[in-house]
């Protein structure tokens, strides 16, 4: 079969006339800002805890005598790995950073050397479900942090804007984590029959719910990315005494 890549009917990288470059550009900038901020906060190793509030970047707080670096390093590989292997983020960064392809019907990289996710390192994307298991555990801890943030250091019940923000962050992270494609498969997608046994019927109901979440996985992914960064920024600002936690009562 003739390779038509150099055909006269398709000169140049694309004949598209719309602003196809806008989306990958926004993704590249959005990710870039978050990665720069998260890297700074990981190595800052300061202002991550104040009173009953603990930053999601440093939770669960792991303190070991033998570890002399930022404790965030011991944790952040889990959410970072979960997001890096996430099916939505893969689409986004393959387009924005790897140019494979930058847009539909837009030639980025070319040539027959392409191997996709069949070889190292991209074959490791198949580990997404393991990152999901770990991320779900971390999410449980974040919910625990959000709930105990309603208890002041002196033991009384208190409500602050920061606590509410931590809850909102956990809600968005839950929508993202439990709308994950790997979870959609594990909870029922692997089954080819949903109607024969009671277990299959239950799996169908769970799968159906997860599918609803999964339809908006991109939205959950971005909302939770911003919320986790902003929650950390809020706690950092309170710890650095730039702003108060916003105690309501």
């Amino acid at each position, binding site marked *: *079969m*003739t*390779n*038509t*890549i150099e*055909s*006269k*009917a*398709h000169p140049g990288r*694309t*004949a*598209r*006339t*719309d602003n196809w470059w806008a989306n990958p550009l926004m993704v590249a900038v959005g990710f870039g800002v978050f990665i720069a901020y998260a890297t700074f906060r990981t190595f800052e190793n300061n202002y991550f805890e104040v009173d009953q509030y603990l930053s999601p970047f440093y939770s669960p707080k792991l303190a070991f005598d033998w570890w002399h670096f930022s404790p965030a390093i011991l944790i952040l590989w889990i959410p970072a790995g979960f997001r890096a292997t996430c*099916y939505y983020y*893969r*689409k986004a960064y*393959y*387009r924005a950073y790897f140019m*494979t*392809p930058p847009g*539909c*019907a837009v*030639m*980025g*990289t*070319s*040539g*027959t*050397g*392409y*191997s*996709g*996710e*069949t070889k190292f390192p*991209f*074959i490791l994307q*198949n*580990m*997404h*479900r*393991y990152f999901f298991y770990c991320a779900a555990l971390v999410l449980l801890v974040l919910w625990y942090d959000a709930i105990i943030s309603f208890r002041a250091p002196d033991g009384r019940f208190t409500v602050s804007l920061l606590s509410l923000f931590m809850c909102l962050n956990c809600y968005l992270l839950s929508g993202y984590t439990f709308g994950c*494609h*790997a979870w*959609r*498969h*594990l909870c029922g*997608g*692997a*089954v*080819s*029959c*949903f*109607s*024969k046994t009671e277990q299959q019927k239950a799996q*169908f109901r769970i799968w159906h719910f997860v599918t609803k979440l*999964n*339809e908006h996985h991109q939205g959950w992914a971005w909302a939770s990315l911003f919320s986790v960064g902003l929650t950390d920024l809020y706690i950092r600002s309170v710890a650095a005494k730039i702003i108060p936690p916003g105690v309501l009562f």
Partner: protein
Amino acid sequence: MRKAKLKVYRGTADAGEFKDYEVQVEEGMVVLDAIHAIQAKDSPDLAVRWNCKAAKCGSCSAEVNGMPSLMCKTRMDRFEEGEEIRVAPIKTFPIIKDLVTDVSWNYEVNKKIKGFSPAPDDKEWIIHQEDIDRVQEFRKCIECFLCQNVCHVLRDHDRKDAFMGPRFLVRTAGLEMHPKDTANRMQYLKDEGHIGMCNITKCCTEVCPEDIHITDNAIIPLKERVVDEFYDPLGKVIKKIMGTDKKGW
């Protein structure tokens, strides 16, 4: 009544050029109507493959202003007055003449997929709707091959030697998720269809005229089934202990 300016590719892959035409735009007109008008008035030898003019036969695939689409589903009133409309054949397959390409490679790929395989002694053929919903979505495919055309693995990297493409991943998903099917196509998907080549950038979904969620509902679930079989040792052990067989009734 306004006139539209069209640039239509005339020729073969090796020798050809875009020729200018002017067409009277009528209410409800689509690009395929404009091509027919050119055939009727200016160039009776203009080659175009078409059949139903109702977005159901999948014959009139082309690239309109660089975007893979069905000509019969691309309305002329979406273009601004005076905007040039560039019509080219689909890029991924060899041009026979003008807008007609040779898509026979696809039929060769199709032959390699193990067909529907119900158990020979199966007599119970009542299938519940929830079991067949997923498969019915895939049966909407009209084989326009726009997804094959836009897939960068085939389009830019020309890996027809290795990758089966989204259309045939959809077909395989329809078979694998069928509640009565008993065959296992995972080895084929991994080693011959090379599902790992797909980096899920979702262009196939974006161009599908039948709005099939190719990536989310077909490719990713198949990738997860391949992970079950080849990349999830922990899951294998658990399934072995629990004795769960997720295939068939």
